[in-house]
């Protein structure tokens, strides 16, 4: 009997060893990738790099300001569309989970989440780029907004579903009309969760290249016109990294580093928001 218990303990130790080992193995490539990008990119970044457009081949210097401004404008525009629409849909789904509309829109959200981003790009190309006859920042924003929507919808829905019904009843029993219950009680109580969903969705789309390939297209010059082609960070990385020139490769590394930092900062913000603003139920 005692020998058996000893054997069981050994099995537990072995099992624990295995999961720790794989957890560690999982982290290694991630850290190597991060370190590599930082090593390659960090020395490219300086004030000149952040405030100038890319230099032509053979000329030293050059920067990524066109991509920074482009990414900012396009993500901002897509967020302006996707956040209110996504929040409204998320509120509907959490409030009316048993209706037919909720069932089918929930299904659509799941499917939308699984649609490859390049397919979203093609669709937007046929919807907007072709009729307008030109690549444009606005079409890129539409593609990004479509990518953001399912994340915002699901995070809003999941957050609000966790709030107890008693909260809603408390407000309703005070004679508060339904729309005010949602806007003044339910949404503020779930604000941390909704906001972290929003920052995560931004972190997700800021690195998307595929939907921008045939929509915003890219632009070697600084442009702020939303009806003209516009550069973005991931697209700049794609173009310059696949070029045959070393200078351009360095530019792509610098841009990769900046993009990485954005995503990192957005994730840290998300963590801080969830910790600081979470309401104690």
């Amino acid at each position, binding site marked *: 009997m005692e020998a058996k218990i000893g054997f069981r303990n050994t099995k537990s130790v072995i099992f624990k060893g295995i999961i720790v080992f794989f957890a560690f193995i999982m982290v290694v490539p991630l850290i190597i990738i991060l370190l590599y990008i930082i090593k390659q990119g960090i020395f490219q970044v300086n004030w000149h790099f952040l405030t100038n457009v890319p230099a032509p081949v053979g000329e030293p210097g050059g920067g990524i300001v066109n991509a920074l401004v482009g990414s900012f404008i396009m993500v901002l525009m897509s967020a302006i569309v996707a956040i209110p629409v996504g929040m409204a849909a998320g509120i509907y789904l959490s409030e009316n989970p048993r209706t037919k509309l909720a069932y089918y829109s929930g299904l659509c959200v799941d499917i939308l989440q699984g649609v490859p981003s390049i397919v979203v790009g093609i669709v937007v190309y046929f919807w907007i780029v072709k009729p307008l006859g030109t690549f444009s920042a606005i079409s890129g924003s539409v593609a990004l907004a479509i990518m953001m929507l399912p994340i915002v919808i699901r995070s809003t829905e999941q957050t609000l579903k966790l709030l107890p019904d008693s*909260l809603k009843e408390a407000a309703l029993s*005070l004679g508060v009309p339904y729309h005010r219950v949602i806007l003044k*009680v339910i949404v*503020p109580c779930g604000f941390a969760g909704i906001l972290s969903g929003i920052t995560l969705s931004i972190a997700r789309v800021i690195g998307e290249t595929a939907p921008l390939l045939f929509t915003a297209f890219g632009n070697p010059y600084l442009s702020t016109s939303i009806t003209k082609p516009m550069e973005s960070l991931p697209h700049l990385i794609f173009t310059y990294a696949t070029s045959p020139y070393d200078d351009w490769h360095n530019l792509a590394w610098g841009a990769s580093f900046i993009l990485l930092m954005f995503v990192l900062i957005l994730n840290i913000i998300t963590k801080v928001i969830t910790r600081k603003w979470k309401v104690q139920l």
Partner: protein
Amino acid sequence: MESTIVKAENYNSYFGDNHVVKDVNISINKNEVIAVMGPSGCGKTTFLRGINRMHELIPNATSKGKILLDGENVYDMNAIYVRSKIGMVFQRPNPFPNLSIYENVIAGYLLNGIKISKADKDVIVEKSLTSAALWKEVKDSLHKKGTFLSGGQQQRLCIARAIAMQPELILFDEPTSALDPISTSSVEALFHELKANYTLIIVTHNMQQAARVSDRTAFFYMGELVEFDDTKQMFTNPADQRTQNYITGRFS
């Protein structure tokens, strides 16, 4: 002559086809404490939620008959208006977690967008918290979140929130079932004081509580109002055999 504040006339409630409150007729006087007791699933909470029209918020829930508040049928009034006239306190304390204690008390005004001056707010907050026997405990932490309070304090905060709207009638849905004995007695002690200004209807499955706090008791069984009488009378000499069985613990 005592005046009637709430009167139910042939009141029925349903969940889909399930008939949960059957032909209830009851008349409740001003400044009375009424206990509503009965076994689980007897329709007592559903009846209570019918009075301030919270019942109809549940999908498939319907009702028939009249509930008169000061002689007017609440089902002919705007539901939102009815709910603002009748206070309600729930089974679990449910202060708004995003609001401070101060804001929780005046939540009925804040959430409805009713503008009142800072001075008026201060008066309402102090008066309501004093009535709810909570003022002394929280007067130095009014701007902390309400959820930092203990369960019993939270429940008294919810009572203060209901009082702040100056209702004539306050409904309590098993207000102490989620509280420990000490918090329970603090809430029960409050009922006696609130009686002076308000009419209280308290749903409880705790017979001792019904006996301790109420003037009159209504006994519900299988959706029917079996007996409604003076609390003392009912607990010493019930008229109906089913009440007798319930009180003596022959079923629960």
